[in-house]
C-alpha cells in the first residue's frame, strides 16, 4: 500500500505547486492544464513508486485520489 501523503508530496514537487492544493478531491486537469506535463508527472510517479500503469488505467482517473487508488491497485 502506497503512502498517500508521499504520493501527494511527489505530485506537489513535480508540478511545483503548493502541497495544500494536492488534495484527494483535486482534479488533475485543474492542477495542471498542460496534458504533456501531466504525462511527465504520471511517468515520474511510476518511476518513484515502482508501479506501472497503462493508458486504460487512466481512463477513469479524474482526481488525485483516483490516481492514488489506481497506483495502489497496480502496486
Amino acid at each position, binding site marked *: 500500500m502506497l503512502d498517500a501523503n508521499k504520493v501527494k508530496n511527489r505530485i506537489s514537487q513535480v508540478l511545483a505547486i503548493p502541497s495544500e492544493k494536492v488534495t484527494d478531491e483535486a482534479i488533475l486537469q485543474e492542477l495542471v492544464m498542460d496534458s504533456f506535463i501531466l*504525462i*511527465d508527472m*504520471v511517468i515520474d510517479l511510476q518511476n518513484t513508486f515502482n508501479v*506501472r500503469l497503462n*493508458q486504460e488505467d*487512466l*481512463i477513469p482517473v479524474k482526481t488525485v485520489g483516483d490516481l492514488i487508488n489506481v497506483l495502489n491497485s497496480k502496486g
Partner: protein
Amino acid sequence: MKLEALTENQRWLLSFYRTSEISGALFFGRLAKSLPPGPIQTDLTKHFADESQHSWYWTRCLQNLGVEPIKLETAYQDQYISAAGMPANIMEVLGITLVFEKRVIGQYALHRQAKDLHPEIKSTLDLIVEDEKWHIEWVTQALKNMEAEYGKDHIDKTLKNFSDADKEVYQKTVKEHEERISGILKF
C-alpha cells in the same frame, strides 16, 4: 529562379512548424529530466536537443526571409491527447512519438516537393529531415527492446491506436487550415 517574398500563409505554416518543434522540445526536456539514467534517457536527451535546434532553425529561416514568427497558441501534437488518450508509461510515450515523427517526416517531405520552394526553406527542411530519420531509428529500436517487457502484441496494438488517432488529427488539421496550406502543399 525568381524568389518571391514569403506570403502570409507561408509565414503561418513555418510558424506552425516552429511551434510544434518547441512543444516537442518542452515535452522531451521534461521527460529527459525525470527519467532514470539509461539508454532511453540518453537518446531522449539528444532528441530534446534536436527539437530545440529545429525550433531555432525555423526561427532563423523566418528571420532570413524577412519576417517574424507568428505566435500560435496550440501545437499540432496538443490534439493527440484528446484523440488518442493520454499515454501512461514510457512505452506508450515512445509509441505516440514514433507515430508523430513519421507524420513530421512525411509532412516535411511533402513540403520539400512544393513548387518554387524558396532555397532557405529547402535547406531548413533538409537539415531537419536528417535528424528526423535518426529519431525514427532510435524510437523504433527502443520499442523493439521493450518487447520482452511489454509484449510485442501490446506494443503493436498501442501503435495502431496512436496511428489511427494521428490520421484523424492530420485530416482535421488539414481541413481546418485548408485555405492557408492548399496553395503551398499538394495532397
